[in-house]
């Protein structure tokens, strides 16, 4: 504890020297509890666009279609057509129209987001209930329905990170370059 406080004081002093952050001039009581990588792993569910964080496992569109027909179709419709909730498929080529259709296929810039979002938030009534293989399979199914991968392509940590989404270059990044437009 005392060595940690010493390090903290050193860092605060350094931050002050660098003329940085006024809030850093405040010091806390140092009550944070150290935790190991293994112990925090169950919470570490986010996937970076590089693929960092993708777990072991794999799945194909065929397997994904089976899961979809049981766990997803009630909200997202036949083959991702939507209704009553978000449409997941199609819309490519509509982004310049006022009535544009934004889906995974037409709008989402990163395939890793599909895995990340399904695993953390879907199915709506039972989030974080799918196995990693099931998430890979559903991701493969939705990417195949959108024509982004082939029917037989297996999605895993290596292949998913390599998928290039059709609208990858469809965004104008406003931070930090143009935060004050």
């Amino acid at each position, binding site marked *: 504890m005392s060595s940690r406080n010493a*390090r*903290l004081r050193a*860092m605060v002093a350094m*931050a002050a020297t660098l003329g*940085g*952050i006024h*809030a*850093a001039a*405040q010091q*806390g*009581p*140092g*009550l*944070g*509890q*150290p*935790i*190991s*990588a293994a112990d*925090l792993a169950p*919470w*570490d*569910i*986010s*996937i*970076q*666009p*590089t693929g960092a964080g993708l777990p072991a496992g794999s799945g194909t569109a065929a397997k994904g279609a089976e899961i979809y027909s049981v766990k997803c179709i*009630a*909200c997202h419709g036949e083959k991702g057509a939507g209704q*009553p*909730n978000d449409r997941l498929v199609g819309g490519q080529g509509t*982004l*310049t129209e*006022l*009535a*544009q259709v*934004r889906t*995974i296929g037409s*709008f*989402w*810039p*990163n395939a*890793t*987001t599909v895995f*990340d*979002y399904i695993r*953390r*938030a879907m199915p*709506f009534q039972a*989030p974080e209930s799918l196995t990693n293989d099931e998430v890979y399979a559903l991701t493969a199914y939705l990417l195949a329905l959108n024509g982004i991968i082939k029917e037989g392509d297996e999605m895993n940590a290596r292949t998913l990170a390599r998928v290039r989404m059709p609208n990858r270059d*469809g*965004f*104008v*990044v*406003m*931070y*930090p370059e143009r*935060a*004050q437009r």
Partner: protein
Amino acid sequence: MSDTTLTNSSLEVVAGNGLLHRRLFLTGGAALAGTAGLSLLTARPVGAEPLEIPPWMRAPGAAMSAYGQPSRFEADVQRVTGGTPNVVGSGVSFTPHHRLHGTITPNSLHFERHHSGVPAIDPDQHRLLIHGAVQRPLTFTVDNLLRYPTVTRIQFLECAGNSGQNLNPQPPQAPCGVIHGLMSCSEWTGVPLAILLEEAGVDRSAGWVLAEGADAAAMSRSIPLEKLMDDAIVALYQNGERLRPENGYPMRLFLPGWEGNMSVKWLRRLKVVSEATMTRDETSHYTDVLLNGKALMFTYPMHVKSVITSPSTGLALQGPGLYEITGLAWSGLGKIARVEVSADGGRTWADAALSEPVLSKSFTRFRMPWRWSGGPAVLMSRAIDDTGAVQPTRASLVREHGERQNYHNNGIQAWNIAASGEISNVFA
């Protein structure tokens, strides 16, 4: 400001269609009574009814209460909720600004946006995890954080989607609070993130932090580390009491001035990373589509904006005479410098009075005296912040984004006053 008497110049018409000098309100109501001010009223009040002793003075009232409630006569002042089909708990509720005043939103009426309902979090079991590019991954309990140094600031929170329907081709006809109710303002108290990140030994070169909530959607956003080290807090208290469940109990991220979705509620995890995680809510949502098919991404600050809350839709004028036009102005980049008001659809403008204190990234209440002739009127307000940014017209936003619902609509709002006193939403 220093005027103590109402002079003729106080009644000076400063812009078209009956706008009067703001000095009229700065001098206070007492000065107005018994002066020429009353002659502004074109309709003389009818005689008052004889006074009687009311029943609530003939017997003692109710006892003390453990937690106060509004008068039952105010029971209709409520949030209006809007949901998503089939998914209870995913949707919004709107602050009824047309029924409120001042600048602080009551906790029970703070707007809501949930992506998978309000979790019932036991604070003893909740943990905040800080990990990733840090020297020491740490967890904090709620009790831990309650011992840390705190800051208290009065600041607004506005959903990026607030007022978005005003970009549709037809003006939505709904109460002001439903059109503009995805914004609220509170006194937030919490622990500066910089303290916690420094304790974990954050790698300052990492650049980004993934913030994640403990709701069923594990709602997540990437936050620039620079913002977290600047003025962000882990908020624990709202208007003096612990956070409400629908506002993130037991703790939420609070990022002053930035779009509400980034102030992640039920905060459970901060992962320091080298690039944005590109979560669903910063890619497929909360990006601002342009007419050319591209979308602006990472549009964080909520830009300068104002809205007249009275008179506004949801209310009605009761005949010609003197009224107070009042509303809210705010900017995610700093303080409000000026608010101008027009009663003739933007042809002429005059400065409104700003209520002190005028705080950075906070609601500022403005006021403007107005003598309604009973004829046609279109009321508008236009805010300017201390960076010099001017609230844009709806038309200028439509030119860039097209005429469709979108995020970050800070366009000027126009309210049409009919001869009957009815108020409607118009594009002017």
